[in-house]
């Protein structure tokens, strides 16, 4: 039995929240202390990679709409690409400080996919409202990795990037399959 869309979105929200807390803690303690234990250094790349794999699973079940299938496939590919590059950075296979630009591109394209595949106006439903808000949030948040690439030592960019996932989690938790755009959705 395939779970309802809102169930998958709440699970995705939990992964995003954990990712946000992990990234936020790295900003607080600094990368040097955070990467002192190898498993912690691989945590965010692994979470991104696993999220990509799970998004492919969701894409497989999104056959009810070509737009949804394409959007989920794009998010899956973006997450896997970022995860793979982060793994290579942690492993030392890649060394350029400009690799966060790839994360920025992945975020930007993911945000655009949110905006493009939502055909309804903002207040049509909770789902439509959240697609617009999440899309614009991610498009604007693409500025944080750009900042990380240009000013790697400035904590502001890392904090903004981490908080993006916390905000994304809040928005995904707010999703309901059938609910008005704003206000309570009683069962």
């Amino acid at each position: 039995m395939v779970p309802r869309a809102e169930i998958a979105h709440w699970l995705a929200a939990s992964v995003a929240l954990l990712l946000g807390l992990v990234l936020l803690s790295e900003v607080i303690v600094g990368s040097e202390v955070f990467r002192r234990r190898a498993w912690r250094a691989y945590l965010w790349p692994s979470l991104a990679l696993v999220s990509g794999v799970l998004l492919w699973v969701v894409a497989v079940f999104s056959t009810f709409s070509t737009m949804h299938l394409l959007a989920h496939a794009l998010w899956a590919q973006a997450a896997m690409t970022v995860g793979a590059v982060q793994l290579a950075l942690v492993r030392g296979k890649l060394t350029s400080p400009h690799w966060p630009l790839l994360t920025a591109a992945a975020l930007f394209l993911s945000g655009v996919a949110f905006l493009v595949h939502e055909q309804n106006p903002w207040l049509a439903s909770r789902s439509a409202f959240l697609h617009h808000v999440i899309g614009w949030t991610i498009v604007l948040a693409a500025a944080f990795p750009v900042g990380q690439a240009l000013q790697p030592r400035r904590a502001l960019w890392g904090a903004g990037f981490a908080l993006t996932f916390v905000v994304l989690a809040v928005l995904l938790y707010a999703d309901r399959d059938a609910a008005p755009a704003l206000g309570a959705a009683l069962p």
Partner: protein
Amino acid sequence: MSSELAGEIAERAARRPRASGRGGRALAVQVLGPLTMLAGVVWAFAQPYRIVFLHPEGKGAYDFLVQPPLLVVVVGLLFSVLIAPGLVEDLERGDRGPAR
């Protein structure tokens, strides 16, 4: 005052802000998990209909497995138990090299 003692005092004074900065960062990492759990609990009180255990009629297996406020609590708990303690330990270890 000998120059050795003066040097020691100056060194201790220079070390103090770094230690207190480390303490503040350790505290910040330690409160992340509990704050997340608190958010989940507050959400459960604000929207009790999100807790399926309180209204089990007509609900499926997925509804029992995935209850958003409880998920938030679980994420906070995971962070508090699996990630925060090691980070705090490494912060307190300071510049004494890699832990493992």
